[in-house]
């Protein structure tokens, strides 16, 4: 597709929004190219995306926040490509979001219900936060429990995007002992396509990339076994980490501020969970590609994996036991010794009994028996 080619601008579409905001076709194609690269699509798809997005109607999105910390929203507001402003004004119509919307109270709830009615079967539902299954009062909005609001809103949604580890896998609220009985979105909703975008918080461009994919192709991207888009969660942090060569060479930092750490050696010994964590931090990075936690000197804590909070101490190497202690081994050894004493006693008493019951036989006895 040539840049000079004119596309007919249809009213109410993303294309119209772009034109109104003075975005040139060249700029838009450039943006679609970077988006295609992010989504691991072939470069030729950029033109297709540009065509599809400009003709698409602005997608209605309802964002529900349950047991969460607003970190996911904080993260998406720091997205750079596309920026949240781009996303809201050009591509989506964010009809309901507690933190970002101006309306409150009844007006806010009315906006949600109106959007659900107007876009029945077409709107995208984004959820952050886990859902408490214990007392409904643990988390409620406008007097509606999180569970009921999710079920009600999910009914007419085209698809659901669960953002953040709380919505995708239960996250920190679900951590042992899970006082609120927190569950994930997919634990409750079974009849809708769900895209999991885990992370604590998720990478902004991953969130916006998933939304852009939905807008472009009208469907969900290829997902892994845990419901995550493969284009972003297909490889471990460790495999794409710039410190990986040092792991292969057996060169490790021993403390967070030693010479080895400063030289970029591997943080495995300091508890990095990169080898078992699937996410795009090492490639897309954070803050407009500035860096990611490992680059800042801290090991990965595995926040995009289910139950990462209960997967052992953050600062213990993966090869270390989660809870085994030397005292435990000592106790086992004492138990072994006690069992050894019991066996010894048994062996010796058997031997002593055999000795005691031994009858001496003389030649005369044998001779008598012979007769």
């Amino acid at each position, binding site marked *: 597709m040539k840049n000079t080619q004119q596309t007919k601008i249809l009213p109410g579409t993303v294309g119209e929004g772009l034109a109104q905001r003075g975005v040139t076709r060249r700029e838009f194609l450039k943006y679609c190219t970077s988006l295609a690269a992010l989504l691991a699509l072939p470069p030729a798809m950029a033109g297709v995306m540009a065509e599809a997005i400009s003709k698409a109607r602005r997608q209605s999105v309802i964002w529900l926040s349950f047991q969460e910390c607003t970190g996911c929203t904080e993260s998406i507001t720091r997205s750079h490509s596309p920026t949240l402003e781009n996303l809201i004004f050009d591509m989506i119509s964010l009809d309901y979001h507690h933190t970002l919307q101006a309306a409150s109270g009844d007006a806010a709830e009315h906006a949600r219900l109106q959007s659900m009615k107007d876009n029945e079967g077409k709107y995208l539902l984004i959820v952050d936060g886990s859902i408490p299954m214990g007392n409904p009062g643990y988390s409620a909005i406008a007097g509606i429990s999180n569970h009921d609001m999710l079920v009600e809103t999910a009914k007419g949604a085209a698809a659901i995007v669960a953002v953040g580890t709380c919505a995708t896998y239960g996250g920190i609220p679900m951590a042992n002992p899970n006082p609120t009985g927190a569950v994930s979105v997919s634990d409750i909703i079974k009849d809708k396509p769900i895209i999991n975008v885990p992370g604590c918080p998720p990478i902004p461009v991953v969130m916006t990339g998933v939304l852009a994919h939905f807008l472009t192709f009208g469907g969900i991207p290829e997902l892994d076994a845990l419901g995550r888009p493969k284009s972003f969660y297909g490889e471990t942090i460790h*495999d794409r980490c710039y410190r990986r060569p040092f792991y*292969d060479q057996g060169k490790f930092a021993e403390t967070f501020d030693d010479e080895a750490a400063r030289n970029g050696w591997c943080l495995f010994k300091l508890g990095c969970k990169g080898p*078992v964590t699937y996410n795009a931090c090492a490639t897309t990075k954070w803050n407009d590609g500035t860096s990611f936690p490992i680059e800042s000197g801290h090991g990965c804590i595995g926040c995009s994996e289910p139950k990462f909070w209960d997967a*052992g101490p953050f600062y213990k190497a993966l090869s*270390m*036991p989660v809870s085994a202690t030397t005292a435990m081994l000592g106790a086992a050894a004492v138990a*072994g*010794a006690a*069992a050894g004493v019991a066996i010894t006693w048994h062996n010796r008493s058997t031997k002593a009994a055999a000795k005691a019951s031994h009858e001496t036989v003389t030649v005369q006895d044998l001779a008598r028996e012979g007769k």
Partner: protein
Amino acid sequence: MNHLELLTFARGNALNWALMLFAAGVVLRLFEIFSLGRKADLSKPRANSPGSGWRTVLTRSLPAEGMLKRDPVTYISGYVFHVGLFLAIFFLAPHIEFFRSMTGLRWPNLPTPLVDASVVAAMVALGVLLAHRLNNPVKRMLSGIGDYVAWGATFLPLLTGYMAYHHLFVEYTLMLSLHLFSVELLLVLLPFTKLFHTFSLFISRWYNGDIFGRKGVAS
């Protein structure tokens, strides 16, 4: 249960139980052996041979005269396997971290590719030894089910560790869990199978060397 949960279980309760059974089993078996006792040898030693037991501990690690030529497969594969396994267990950085967490002791690690090569050598040697055991009529006759179980329990941690490191066939987190489970199986079996020679080997060598020294046989 997802893969990370499986790994947490493998590093957690499963490892705790395996380590406890291992520790209790080793102490129990050692206790059993030592408590058997020996009757005091009242005879006068034929030769004064101080250190005979200790010498035997070392000399039995070398092939007896002519034996290397008679059975090179067993000796060479045996050495390669044992050295390879030793390097893999004690000189891979993540393994040293494990020992450090349990004992507080640490020592320098070897470069990972070197350990990797030693694991390959150990696995090849184990394969050769198994083939030899199956093809040699005398070895085959002497082998029981316990020998093959011991072989399998030793081979599995090497194979799963190698596969995990090289990301072969199975997803890494799952493979790492399987590696830990295979090690845990080895830990549980070790005290109660022929694998206990890890501990009893040097005890029995010392005893043999000492008793034969008293009887006038050179160690």
